[in-house]
């Protein structure tokens, strides 16, 4: 039971990092990023490939972040000028294209078989029985650092500019701010958080495969962000906790309804996730969360 709670808490930490990044994009800056899973996947695959090749885990993680910075800059420079709905579709497409690449570039990613046996960091120094707890501590430390940085950034003049750009591009421009530059920086920062989350996931599960990086991951992060409140950093963590408990909780559905086979059960789960997403949006529009929140709740 304790092990299960530790595992859940670890997943919450990873999901919270992913959601924090997305909240920086959409909640704070208004970037409609539907490809967050791309950066998560880049981080996970960088960690997997490099640490299997013998790199120490922290360096593999940093390499993942570096690749993400590069990838998000390229994506941002080419697409951030576009209208928000074009941008949404393009980011979604970008994440699917990366997944297709991971599925077919067998020399690098081992395709659909995935990469097993990713080493767990510092495993030799820790008693095996308490490794789960150690990993939770590691995730928590990184989450706290990321949270603090996000908060500092959000409250700094930089964060103020991001909110100004979100509210009114033209007004921000008339004060001599270049919206494209600030949006790009926001995209890079949120992508880096996603990359760290991906690295932590890879080292935790010790196995990556392209199927783990479907757009559903992005949608879960969106749901977590909306549950927690747009632009709210503590909300991201709370929202991530709600999402993980919901997702992991429904895995036990099989025991409750034994007469349904596994694919049907999986379908029911997805139906509820879809309905949940719709319900969240209905609730959010009633409360006018979307589009009108301006005061930072950080």
């Amino acid at each position, binding site marked *: 039971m304790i092990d299960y709670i530790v595992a859940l808490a670890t997943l919450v930490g990873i999901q919270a990092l992913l959601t924090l990044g997305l909240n920086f994009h959409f909640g704070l800056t208004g970037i*409609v990023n539907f490809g967050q899973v791309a950066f998560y996947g880049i981080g996970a695959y960088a960690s997997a490939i490099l640490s299997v090749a013998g790199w120490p885990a922290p360096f593999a993680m940093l390499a993942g972040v570096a690749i993400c910075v590069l990838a998000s800059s390229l994506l941002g420079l*080419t*697409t951030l*000028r*576009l*209208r*928000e*709905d*074009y941008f*949404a*579709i*393009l980011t*979604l*497409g*970008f994440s*699917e*294209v990366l997944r*297709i*690449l991971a*599925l*077919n570039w067998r020399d690098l990613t081992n395709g659909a078989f995935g990469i097993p046996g990713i080493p767990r960091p510092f495993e030799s120094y820790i008693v095996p029985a308490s490794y789960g707890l150690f990993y939770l501590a590691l995730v928590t430390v990184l989450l706290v650092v990321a949270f603090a940085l996000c908060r500092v950034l959000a409250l700094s003049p930089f964060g103020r500019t991001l909110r100004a750009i979100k509210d009114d591009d033209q007004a921000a421009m008339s004060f001599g701010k270049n919206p494209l530059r600030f949006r790009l920086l926001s995209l890079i920062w949120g992508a880096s958080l996603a990359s760290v989350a991906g690295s932590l996931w890879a080292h935790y599960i010790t196995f990556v495969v392209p199927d783990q990086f479907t757009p559903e991951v992005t*949608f879960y992060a*969106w749901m977590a962000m*909306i549950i927690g409140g747009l632009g709210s950093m503590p909300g991201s963590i709370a929202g991530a906790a709600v999402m993980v408990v919901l997702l992991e909780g429904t895995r036990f559905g099989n025991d409750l309804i034994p007469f349904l086979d596994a*694919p*049907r059960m*999986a*379908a*029911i789960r*997805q*139906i509820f*996730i*879809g*309905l*949940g*997403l*719709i319900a*969240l*949006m*209905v609730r*959010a*529009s*009633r409360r006018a969360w*979307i*589009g009108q929140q301006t005061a930072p709740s950080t």
Partner: protein
Amino acid sequence: MAELVNLTVSGSLTASFLVLGAIGLTITFGVLRFANIAHPDFMMLGAYSAFFFNGVLGLPFLPSALLGLCSAVLIGTAIAWIAYDRLDVRGPVPLLIVSIGVSLVLRHVVQFLFGSDFRQFSTPLQRPYVFGPVRLTSSQIATLAVAVLLVVAVHIILTRTKFGRTLRAMADNPTLCEIAGVDVAHARITVMGIAVFLAATAGILFGLNFIIQPSMGWDFLIPIFSATILGGIGNPYGAMVGALTIGVTQEWSTLFLSPVYKDVVSFAVLALCLLLRPQGLWGKVG
């Protein structure tokens, strides 16, 4: 050379599915003002409705296709109307998120009912017609014919009817339309109906030529959006050109690349186009 001709033919076939999907997507965008992620799933809905009559009840293909089309239009329009009109969610991003929810629900309800295995329509055996280097089955000819027919029909509706004028006016300026006394609610639901009709037809035609699966809508997402955005979102004629470009480019790319990269190719075409013209080939700025 013969290979190129054949690839162009199969590209036009792909373009037939894409064009019917893309026109629906683009007119939905023009009137409802959001990118409907669930739109390709209406293709899947059409295919499975026809499969229900054909594969489950055992009717011949043609009546199944017609019955399936009718039921898909009824179900799909009802879902779209409830989700995008009655729920009182407004704004492009919230509606886009709702459409992701609709897409998940649609796909998995079908998966729940029919399972996630590949399915196939039962159609009579066909002997291919040979035109020089090109071999075409009657399914393929029917697909191309229906697609061309519907494209012409859309063109006539857009240019020659009162509804077409309303549609173009709403795409241009919805507020002004409302002030001018246009029945906006009626126009919205009609547009959804037409969009679902075109998508469901495309889905059935796809099922006639290939195998179907609940996730087939998702597989069409990137090419259809590429075609739509390529032509300038909201512009039906742009969508036609976009669909043809994407369909043919995808097939030609198999000369150099593995077919698994078709989606990557359509995405690359789209990205390249948007770099040069951020509003799409024939889109309006803003």
